[in-house]
């Protein structure tokens, strides 16, 4: 089945998300769609799946123009979408999730799960997906959950599969398995649209590449001839260097020492399992690992947001296991939280207010109970300039900034003071290349000033690029350590450790 987009334009108020986009999708082919966050990829795919209606342009399926009125129309035309955030009911079984909405039934509206299971097995066998139809979703690893999403789309006999950032949640090994599935789908004649911002993946899997920037198609490429540099330039609009410039590290005295730490989750499961690590002054330690292996709990324990049940945390030799969050701040610990919306900023506060969330009480900004707003505003304006936060004014609601500027605001607040230790969790998640480069430079600058830097990220590239030492976390434990100062680290070995093979 072939699908063609002609001159698609979509506006949200004054923002033009898609601007005259032309795109052809062909059966038996993988189309790689490359673009940064905010380039308009998701808008375009939501138009294709029927969730949005385009303001201009038309969609042709097998040469005939179609109009989609609602989310069901895309799938009935044979266009299925695998969302970046899975749309699965965790307490349902695989079979229940797959048939939801198109259930086989008997008399009295009886839900025929037996037939459903058989149908799921058939698709399983056809494409080699290997998913147990009776397993509960919440018990399955993400890699398998993703296959369930694919099953759902295939069950509705889709011929076009749109995969939105499908590898974001997978380990490198899972990515390899996933690519095998994509290839088998393609060989079965399905048309695949593979959306991503990861260059090496798009080169590996695509038959054709289209690049989207600022809502327009800015380039097309043949994966056999095009280079990553060329693609990156099309995507960002200027030449990009992927190497983080940094000198060899010169580690000094120990900044952070974690000894035999145990942290529980809310449901009393062990998140961090007798973990020990140390971070020295002047070095970047990166913690690699698939999300959900206890990284968040570890960061929360170090920064004082959770209390560990066992073990101790030393900061510059002093025991801070039971210190308050503010005490840790005052000692020079900076924390860039993993989810800026949840714990990094207050969207309804102004930029200026957000800039002093961790220091409003200091004599510089407060006279007793009264806040000196003039000083706060002046300081915030200076922070914005220093950290390249692009905002028309410090009085703007922080929620109105772009993701990159919000994150730079958080980084500015945390680093614009005397710091000794920087804890950065997913510091560049969902940001554009420009902001990523900037934040990476700043983290390296902190290191060069003699801070200890601990970075937690599920983006292996980020960890590999920044770290002087790489620790791999799996099921609450450090299962492998790699020293990057003595030559390049084997990416494959890190990936294997992330999957728990070294454990």
């Amino acid at each position: 089945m072939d699908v063609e987009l002609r001159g698609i334009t979509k506006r949200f108020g004054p923002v033009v998300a898609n601007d005259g986009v032309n795109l052809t999708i062909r059966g038996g082919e993988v189309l790689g769609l490359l673009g940064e966050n905010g380039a308009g990829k998701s808008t375009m795919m939501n138009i294709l799946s029927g969730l949005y209606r385009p303001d201009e342009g038309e969609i042709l399926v097998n040469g005939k123009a179609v109009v989609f009125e609602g989310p069901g129309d895309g799938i009935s035309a044979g266009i299925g979408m695998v969302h970046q955030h899975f749309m699965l009911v965790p307490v349902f079984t695989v079979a229940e999730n797959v048939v939801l909405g198109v259930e086989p039934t008997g008399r009295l509206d009886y839900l025929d799960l037996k037939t459903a299971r058989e149908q799921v097995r058939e698709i399983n066998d056809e494409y080699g997906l290997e998913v147990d139809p009776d397993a509960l979703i919440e018990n399955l690893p993400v890699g398998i959950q993703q296959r369930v999403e694919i099953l759902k789309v295939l069950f509705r006999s889709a011929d076009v599969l749109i995969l939105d950032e499908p590898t974001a949640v997978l380990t490198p090994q899972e990515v390899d398995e996933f690519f095998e599935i994509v290839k088998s789908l393609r060989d079965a004649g399905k048309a695949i649209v593979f959306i991503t911002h990861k260059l090496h993946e798009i080169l590996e899997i695509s038959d054709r590449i289209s690049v989207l920037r600022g809502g327009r198609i800015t380039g097309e490429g043949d994966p056999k001839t095009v280079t990553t540099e060329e693609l990156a330039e099309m995507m960002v609009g200027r030449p990009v260097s992927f190497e983080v410039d940094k000198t060899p590290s010169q580690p000094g005295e120990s900044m952070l020492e974690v000894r035999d730490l145990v942290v529980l989750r809310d449901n009393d499961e062990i998140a961090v399992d007798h973990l020990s690590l140390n971070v020295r002054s002047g070095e970047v330690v990166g913690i690699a690992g698939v999300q959900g292996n206890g990284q968040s709990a570890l960061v929360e324990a170090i920064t004082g947001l959770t209390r560990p049940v066992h073990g101790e945390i030393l900061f510059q030799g002093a025991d801070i296991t039971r210190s308050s969050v503010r005490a840790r701040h005052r000692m020079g610990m900076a924390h860039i939280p993993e989810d800026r919306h949840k714990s990094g900023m207050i969207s309804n506060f102004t930029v200026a207010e957000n800039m002093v969330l961790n220091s409003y009480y200091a004599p510089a900004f407060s006279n007793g109970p009264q806040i000196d707003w003039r000083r706060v505003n002046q300081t915030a304006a200076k922070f914005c300039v220093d950290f390249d936060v692009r905002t028309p004014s410090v009085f703007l609601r922080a929620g109105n900034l772009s993701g990159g500027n919000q994150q730079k605001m958080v980084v500015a607040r945390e680093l614009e003071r005397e710091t000794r230790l920087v804890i950065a969790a997913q510091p560049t998640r969902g940001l554009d290349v420009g902001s990523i480069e900037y934040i990476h430079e700043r983290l390296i600058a902190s290191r060069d000033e003699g801070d200890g830097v601990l970075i937690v990220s599920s983006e292996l590239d980020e960890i590999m690029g920044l770290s002087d030492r790489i620790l791999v976390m799996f099921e609450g434990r450090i299962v492998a350590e790699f020293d990057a100062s003595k030559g390049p680290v084997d990416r494959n070995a890190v990936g294997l450790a992330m999957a728990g093979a070294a454990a």
Partner: protein
Amino acid sequence: MTVATTNTATASGQKLDVGKQRRARITGAVMIGLALLVLLVLGVDGGEQATFRLSRPTDTWVLPDLVVPAGPFNYVAATVLAFLGARQFLQGGVRWTSLSLGFGLAILVMAFLVWATAGKAFSLTGMLQATMVRAVPIALGGLAGVLCERVAVVNIAIEGMLLAGAFTGALMGSLLGGWGGLVAAVAVGGAFGFFLAALVVTFRMDQIIAGVVINLFVLGLTSYVSSQVFADLRHLNNAPVFRAWKIPVLSDIPVIGPMLFYQNIFVYGALILVAIATYYLFHTRSGLRARAVGEHPRAADTLGVNVYRTRYIHVTLGGMVAGFGGAWFTLGSVGRFDENMTGGRGFIGLAAMIFGRWHPVGALAAALVFGFADSLQQKLALLRTPIPSEFLAMSPYIATIIVVAGLVGKARPPAADGKPYVKE
């Protein structure tokens, strides 16, 4: 890859243990405490006998009375409780924690009954029958709650819907007769359900506030009418009562026969509705979709399930069930309406829903526990125990607090419960 999988299995097994062990220890400690209570407070000395009547003289098959020596029975009960508690506490017995606790509580209730009955006689059959009757409005309230919360609408307004059903049943029952009153009560309950759905689904009003508003509105309106209008026009508040139907043969089964098969249509209705709701929610296409709406509305929406319509339908159905339950107060029992006569049964229904883990059968079982406590309280007043009956009346609520606070293990509500759904 095999290595990785086996690793995962053992590690996650260990992870679960920490929490379970702690819970088992707390449970064990509580049970040892209960054993001491039984021993020191309920351990009667002397050779008094507790007599339990298992049948009534008019029954087809008359069973002999069950006679229990009070003192020895309670010493045995205390020993069993202590043993179970110690086992939980010492072993950190990871298995059977909930079961032991349930067993322990059952022993506690038995010990209490034996103590209260010592030297007297007590009709077990009568109490079971009363248990069932008193469980009905709670079970129907709980079932209404299950229907609403399974599609993620928190229905605090069940109390108001019960009251509206009771009022309508009395008024329309007086005018149109019992069946007319019943239909009207169900319709009014459904109307309030639809109104609640409109407030919370379409206008995205806070669900708790919307529920409280409905409760206060119904309470105010019905109280006004009953004190101002019914006081003068008594014939408007004089409805016929549905009598018990005796089901032949089955109602002659000793002990449980009268409880299950010699009741009025509200009891049969509640049992049938629970069975239908269970089949509907867990074995039909519509039920699967409804549960999906409660767990992950966005997923349901992307698969073509109409989230808003599903919520409207189920909240309206819930209202109808509550209206039926409300009619029990007037048409199923006294035939006349009194101010605030539901007395918080709707809220207990919600507790029964949580206790029953959002399952219709669970809600019914929980309602029976509450109904048991309710009827026990009444009977004990007759036995003249030294405990004021008000304290006994509190026991269901204390049980609720213990259960809802999670001693028996965390009950998990539908994931989207209470959250309005906004389409993108």
